C-alpha cells in the first residue's frame, strides 16, 4: 500500500492507495503517528484508491479520530468505495468518523 501525506499549514491530506491489511497496517501506523501529535490538525483521508481495509485499518482510523478529538483537530474520510463504506457501516464507524 502507498501512503502519501501532503501538508499545507494545519491541513493534511492523506492519500491511500492499495490494501490496508495485517501486512500493511504497521507501516501506515508509522506514517500517521506524527499526525496524532499535531495540535488542530485538519486531516482529510482520500480513500479513492483504498481497495480494502481489515480491522487492522479500522483500529488505526479510530486512533486517528481519538487523537484529533483530543488535539482539537478534525478528520474527514472521502471517496470511499461502497465495499469499504460497508465495513465502516457494520462496525458503527460511520457514526463516529465523518465520511464525505
Amino acid at each position, binding site marked *: 500500500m502507498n501512503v502519501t501525506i501532503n501538508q499545507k499549514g494545519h491541513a493534511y491530506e492523506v492519500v491511500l492507495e492499495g490494501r490496508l*491489511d*495485517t501486512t500493511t497496517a504497521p507501516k501506515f501506523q508509522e506514517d500517521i503517528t506524527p499526525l496524532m501529535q499535531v495540535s488542530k490538525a485538519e486531516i482529510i483521508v482520500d480513500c479513492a484508491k483504498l481497495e*480494502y481495509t*481489515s480491522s487492522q485499518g479500522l*483500529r488505526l482510523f479510530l486512533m486517528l479520530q*481519538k487523537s484529533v478529538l483530543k488535539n482539537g483537530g478534525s478528520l474527514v474520510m472521502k471517496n470511499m468505495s461502497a*465495499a469499504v463504506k460497508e465495513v465502516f457501516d*457494520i462496525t458503527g464507524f460511520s457514526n463516529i468518523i465523518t465520511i464525505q
Partner: protein
Amino acid sequence: MHKRFDPIEGLTSIIIEAVMSSEDMPADEGLLFKLRLAVEEAVENIVNYAYSDGAGYLEADTSVKDGVLSIVLQDAGVPFNPLDKEDPDITLSAEDRPIGGLGIFLCKKLMDSVEYEFVNGCNKLTIRKRIA
C-alpha cells in the same frame, strides 16, 4: 483445496493468499472483498493466539457444495472459541470506543455463518458463505 502450514509463525499473509487463491473462490469482486476480510480476521487470530511460541500448524480447507463455500481452519493450539467474545458496542462515541476487538465481529457479520468446534484436541473454525 487442502493446505497445511507448519509452523505458522510469521505466515499470516501467506496463509491468507493461499486460501484466497483457492479454486473454490468466486469471481465476484464484492464477494471476494468480504471473503478476504473474513479469512484475514480468522487467520490472524489463529497465528497470533493459537500457539504461545508460534510453533504449531494450521490446516486450511475450502470446498463448495450447493453454491455454498466452506472454509475450514484447524489448529492444535490452546482451546479457544473466538465466538465467545461479546460483540462490540457499536453505538459508543469515538472517545469511548475501545481500540480493536472488531476482527471476529466483522467475520461474523460478513459471512452467512461462522461455527466453532473443539474436536480431537483441535480448534476447528468453519466459515460459510453462499457464492452462487
